């Protein structure tokens, strides 16, 4: 502290300490403590609140379906020139309404079969129908508001008994626990794959003979790295779709016949989620490893080679030991991202594949409206990640200062 005031004076030091204190308290420590507190508080809620939550969910689903009808109606009317005024609310996600999911809200799509009889309607009928649907939506919206208000009051201190216990964890069903373990296992496998795929690339980049080659490799790595995670996932969904590129390729080489309706549905499986995750998070492994190998004195490799070390020995005895901190950082980042990813399972899975743990957390919060159990689940995920970090740090013998560079 003394040195700080000496250089920056009292005023500035006070400002810095104040800001950091606010940061730690309001953004890091107290929120975490609150989550832990909730995780260990069990809400003994009467059936009533739960029913109410269920009703609200139903109302949202209904509203979404009517909105879809309205949308189809408008598309027929205005032949795709107008864009959707009643786009779906983000809180009616596909998993609550799997049946309605495939009707994408984009204009210009083929009308869904359920709406095809309406094709014959005149413009007036269509408008009357639209007005009717709109009034239905309005009625539903006011009902939702009412119910949510009711829910807020009843889920207050009056509505339920709270007690301190481990029940949020112990009531986790066997299925959820299995999903938890599977998620961690998959995340670990993604990490191992990412290392195997990335190590040669990082090595090649660090050993590049010319600056031009290095620049080229780095640009080639930075571009996909910087492209949004969702888009990287989306590009793979296009490949794995039933009408996607992979099936078209198989069709092309004569393994399947797409015109006869054959084709594999690769999406919506754990394998697909896994494949996409490797693709989406692989690059978080490259840069840390590259940065550490880059600092290795190249003459060490020369020396090992001159002394007769095989390629394998050069890597296991010279390069990898030097790259340890980078491998640790890369592993931690890749594991953390894949274990906590909600984008990949949501988009690749379309709510139809076995759940990922992050999706369970989401549903605890936003569908079951059970925040305390949601907190318990996120705490479980957080703990798993911290344990992974500690184990990695121990294996690679690196400290905190090395991992966050």
């Amino acid at each position, binding site marked *: *502290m003394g*040195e*700080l005031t000496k*250089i*920056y*004076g009292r005023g500035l030091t006070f400002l*810095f*300490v104040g800001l*950091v204190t606010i*940061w730690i308290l309001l*953004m890091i420590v107290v929120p975490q403590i*609150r*989550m832990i507190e*909730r995780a260990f508080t069990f809400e003994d809620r009467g059936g009533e609140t739960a029913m109410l939550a269920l009703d609200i969910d139903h109302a949202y689903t209904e509203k979404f379906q009517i909105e879809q009808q309205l949308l189809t109606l408008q598309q027929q009317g205005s032949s795709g020139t*107008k864009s959707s005024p009643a786009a*779906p609310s*983000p809180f009616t996600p*596909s998993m609550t309404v799997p049946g309605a999911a495939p*009707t*994408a809200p*984009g*204009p210009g*799509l083929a009308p869904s079969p359920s709406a095809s009889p309406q094709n014959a309607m005149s413009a007036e009928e269509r408008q009357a129908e639209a007005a009717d649907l709109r009034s239905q939506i309005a009625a539903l919206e006011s009902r939702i508001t009412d119910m949510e208000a009711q829910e807020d009051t009843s889920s207050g201190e009056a509505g339920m008994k709270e007690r301190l216990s481990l029940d949020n964890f112990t009531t986790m069903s066997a299925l959820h626990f299995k999903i938890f373990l599977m998620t961690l296992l998959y995340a670990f496998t993604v990490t191992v794959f990412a290392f195997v795929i990335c190590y*040669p*690339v990082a090595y090649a980049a660090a050993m590049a*003979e010319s600056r031009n080659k290095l*620049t080229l490799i780095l640009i*080639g790595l*930075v*571009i*996909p790295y*910087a*492209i*949004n*995670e969702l*888009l*990287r996932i989306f590009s793979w969904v296009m*490949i794995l*779709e039933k*009408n996607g590129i992979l099936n*078209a390729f198989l069709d092309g080489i004569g393994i399947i016949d797409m015109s006869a309706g054959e084709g594999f549905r690769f999406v919506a499986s754990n394998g697909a989620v896994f494949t996409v995750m490797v693709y989406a998070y692989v*690059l978080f492994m490259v840069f840390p490893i590259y940065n550490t190998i880059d600092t290795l004195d190249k003459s060490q490799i020369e020396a090992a080679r001159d002394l007769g070390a095989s390629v394998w020995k050069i890597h296991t005895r010279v390069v990898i030991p030097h790259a340890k901190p980078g491998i640790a950082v890369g592993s931690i980042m890749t594991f953390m*991202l894949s274990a*906590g990813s*909600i*984008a990949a399972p949501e988009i690749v899975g*379309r709510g139809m594949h076995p759940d990922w743990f*992050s999706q369970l*957390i*989401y549903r605890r919060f936003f569908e079951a409206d059970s925040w305390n159990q*949601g*907190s318990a689940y996120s705490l479980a*995920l*957080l703990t798993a*990640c*911290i344990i992974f*970090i500690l184990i990695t740090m121990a294996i690679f013998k690196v400290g*905190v*200062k090395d991992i*966050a560079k």
Partner: protein
Amino acid sequence: MTAASDVSMAAPRAAARRRSRDWSGALLNGYLLVFFAYMFLPLGFMVIAAFNAAPTPSATDWQGFTLRWFTELPQDKRFVQGLWHSLAIAGGVIAFSIPLGLSGAFILTRMQSRVTTVLYTVLVSPVLIPGIVLGVTTMIFWRDYFGLQAGLFTAMIAQTSFIASYCMLMFMARLQRQDRVLEEAALDLGATPMLVFRRITIPFLMPTILTACVISFLQSIENYNTTFFAIGSSWTLVTEIGSRMRFGLSPIINAIGVIFIAITITVAVTHTLVTRKRA
């Protein structure tokens, strides 16, 4: 540098070694080609589909060239609104992250004490824990203690909690290379700490501050996991893209993708070339 060591070698052994090195070098180059094909082909398919008239995004079922998906984009109110939300959040994130990151970096680089390691661990922890946990804790905290429903503000705070850590790490890296003699000399010559800070420390950090602004901006705009949990019923451009993707595929998403990719490539190439020139 390899040439110099090769000369001193006995000729046959060196030749043999060079041959095996050529061989493994070619293998490595081949692997690089495969790797980059793996990285870029899916993105290429996505770009092609953005210009395809087919109503579901496809790179194989070509139904003619069109720019229709791009022209439909600005008419989509939720996307446009989402973009404004994203920009507002990014502005807030920059405004909070830079001062927080700077404060943390000053304290950690200038304070020698046993507390520093603990402080450092706490301040970098947001980078190391899953984004969804950050989103969840922020949402719970602001609702429980301040009665604030999840929305744009909580999304901004949740993002700031880890983007500030990234900024701090960047500032620390820069401060560790600072020559402190300059500051001490100025102080000895009677400059006030405030003046030293304004005339020496801040100018020294300025390039890093600019980089940190750009990186915070990009991180904020692109963030999905944390925002998805912290934003409640509101939305940003990226969470909207995510929910559209879940409802099914539409080439409008590909059109957005092409725009994102174009921006990314421009920034990435400029950045790489600029840093290369400087080095």
